[in-house]
């Protein structure tokens, strides 16, 4: 039964991946940059350029280039970086965990604070504090995330000297990468100090990411709760003698979780992209930094692989959220 629910979504996601790959490919062919030109050494001749162009297959028709690329993707090969002259697949694989860790931490922070905020705002409904909370969330959503990042560095990094803001871990705490996830790797290496250090490094960038999500979660949760709380079944639960707290925890929250979950799904996708800026600012060795470097150097194989991975990330998050939604909402389940 579960399979019957998942399969169509999986197929849809797969179709989307194919479309996305076409779109990425076609879009990048329109870029006014010559990856080969960027890659030539001083003293190179026109013949060198043509040879390199041929080597990278850039002289073929776009459709053929795409098919070659797509066939490579099926074999798990993302092509070769023009600038770095190495396989793009491992290159991407080596940076994705860092970005994933950041997104996960940002999501966690944003969701936890968002839900907390939503509950608080719900609790103070119809009091003067509600207005204060409204204005506060409005301000929170209005500030661009890079401002939070810069502000965080200045305040906690430079001024208060409380938190690190460069990279994922201090030099003396470098551990062997087994999973690529620093929090896991430090634990696997049995080094709690390094784990704490990695956690501290995660604090500022994850907060900069999460702080844009939290107010949105707060709002949607609050308004969903306000919507649910007037529903008949909530009134019935009260009439069966449940306290307000019981009504909230047993009925309202689970119902209000549905729209909240949808929002988190959409926003998680945005957040995945938002890491790009945060990574640049915090020197976070993830996909964003790789992508920006690649854009700067016109490294099209890397750009298209990174863009594809971004899309895959979004699609994956959406799929997970979809399934969670399915799990939480019996009305969508097949009989």
């Amino acid at each position: 039964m579960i399979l019957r629910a998942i399969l169509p979504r999986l197929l849809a996601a797969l179709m989307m991946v194919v479309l996305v790959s076409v779109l990425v490919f076609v879009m990048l062919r329109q870029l006014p940059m010559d990856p080969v030109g960027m890659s030539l050494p001083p003293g190179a001749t026109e013949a060198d350029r043509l040879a390199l162009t041929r080597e990278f297959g850039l002289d073929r028709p776009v459709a053929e280039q795409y098919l070659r690329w797509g066939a490579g993707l099926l074999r798990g090969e993302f092509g070769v970086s023009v600038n770095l002259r190495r396989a793009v697949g491992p290159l991407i694989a080596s940076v994705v965990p860092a970005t994933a860790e950041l997104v996960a931490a940002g999501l966690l922070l944003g969701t936890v604070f968002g839900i907390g905020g939503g509950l608080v705002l719900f609790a103070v409904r119809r009091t003067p504090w509600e207005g204060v909370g409204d204005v506060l969330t409005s301000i929170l959503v209005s500030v661009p995330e890079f401002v939070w990042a810069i502000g965080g560095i200045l305040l906690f990094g430079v001024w208060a000297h409380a938190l690190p803001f460069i990279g994922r871990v201090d030099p003396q705490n470098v551990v062997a990468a087994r999973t690529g996830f620093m929090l896991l790797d430090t634990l696997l290496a049995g080094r709690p100090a390094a784990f704490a250090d990695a956690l501290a490094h995660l604090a500022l960038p994850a907060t900069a990411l999460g702080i844009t999500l939290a107010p949105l979660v707060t709002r949607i949760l609050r308004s969903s709760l306000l919507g649910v709380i007037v529903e008949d079944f909530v009134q019935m639960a009260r009439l069966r003698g449940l306290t307000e707290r019981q009504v909230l925890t047993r009925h309202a929250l689970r119902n209000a979780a549905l729209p909240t979950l949808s929002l988190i799904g959409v926003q998680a996708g945005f957040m995945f992209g938002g890491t790009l800026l945060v990574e640049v600012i915090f020197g976070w060795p993830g996909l964003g930094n790789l992508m920006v470097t690649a854009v700067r150097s016109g490294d099209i194989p890397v750009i298209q692989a990174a863009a594809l991975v971004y899309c895959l990330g979004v699609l994956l998050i959406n799929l997970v959220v979809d399934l969670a939604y399915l799990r939480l909402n019996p009305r969508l389940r097949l009989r």
Partner: protein
Amino acid sequence: MNPLSRPVRPHLSRAQLPAQGWAGGLLVLLLGIVAAAAPWISPAPPNEMDLLAVLLPPDWSGPGPHHWLGTDNLGRDVLARLVWGARIAFVVAGGAAAGAAVVGTALGLVAGLLGGWTDWAISRLVDLWMSFPPVVLSLLLLVALGAGLGNVVLAIVLVDWTRFCRVLRSEVMVIRRQDYVSAARLIGFGPLRMIRREVFPGIVPTLLTLVALEMGIAVRVEAVLSFVGMSVPADVPAWGQMIADARGDMSAAPWAILAPIGAIVLTVIGFNLLGDGLRRRLDPRLLGRT
């Protein structure tokens, strides 16, 4: 039936905006006035550089012309750029919101009204579009389009039309199921008249709300794009560009970065409060889900 339930008032003209909505509207109005009056209230030309007067701190002392908010790294008057920047902000915000609204509304109307495979195709297109994270997409678009005010607007439109399309499509679907649409059809309304008289007026409030929110988003996005060095031409005094210019000296000359950040945050808050006010007046739950 609850004795207190009164029918929801559908008219914007009769709207009772919440206090924050008014605050937001006021803020936007104020900025609009500043933008419109820039040539008269600006203390100096916005691009006038004075290499002998770079990074001067804000000066309020004594008589005579001052750099009220100091100067930036090229010796330009920060206040002047701030004031002229309001114009750019409005151009970007207005252009992007209008563009996204036109594209998104058109597709949303088509999808919502026609249904069937058209709806399916447009919805998949939206899904496809939305699987690109906005920052990544706009970065790619700007590399492709090249920098420039028009291209910034175009990039934002190309990224954000989906928001309009999604929300308005579902709104149209709701309206389409209303009996008054069937009734109008039975009375003999053709498709165009139907859209103009029955469907479109129904989505106008939502559209206005979305436009207000989108304007805030556009101001933010412009700042982000300037931050990654892809934005307006050099002679356009945009706030995002001001931040980018001031970032290298932000410890030495914090006024140069704080002024545009403050302006951006205020503007975005203004648009957001206005949009929220409109949204709360309409349906607090529908839009939040997008």
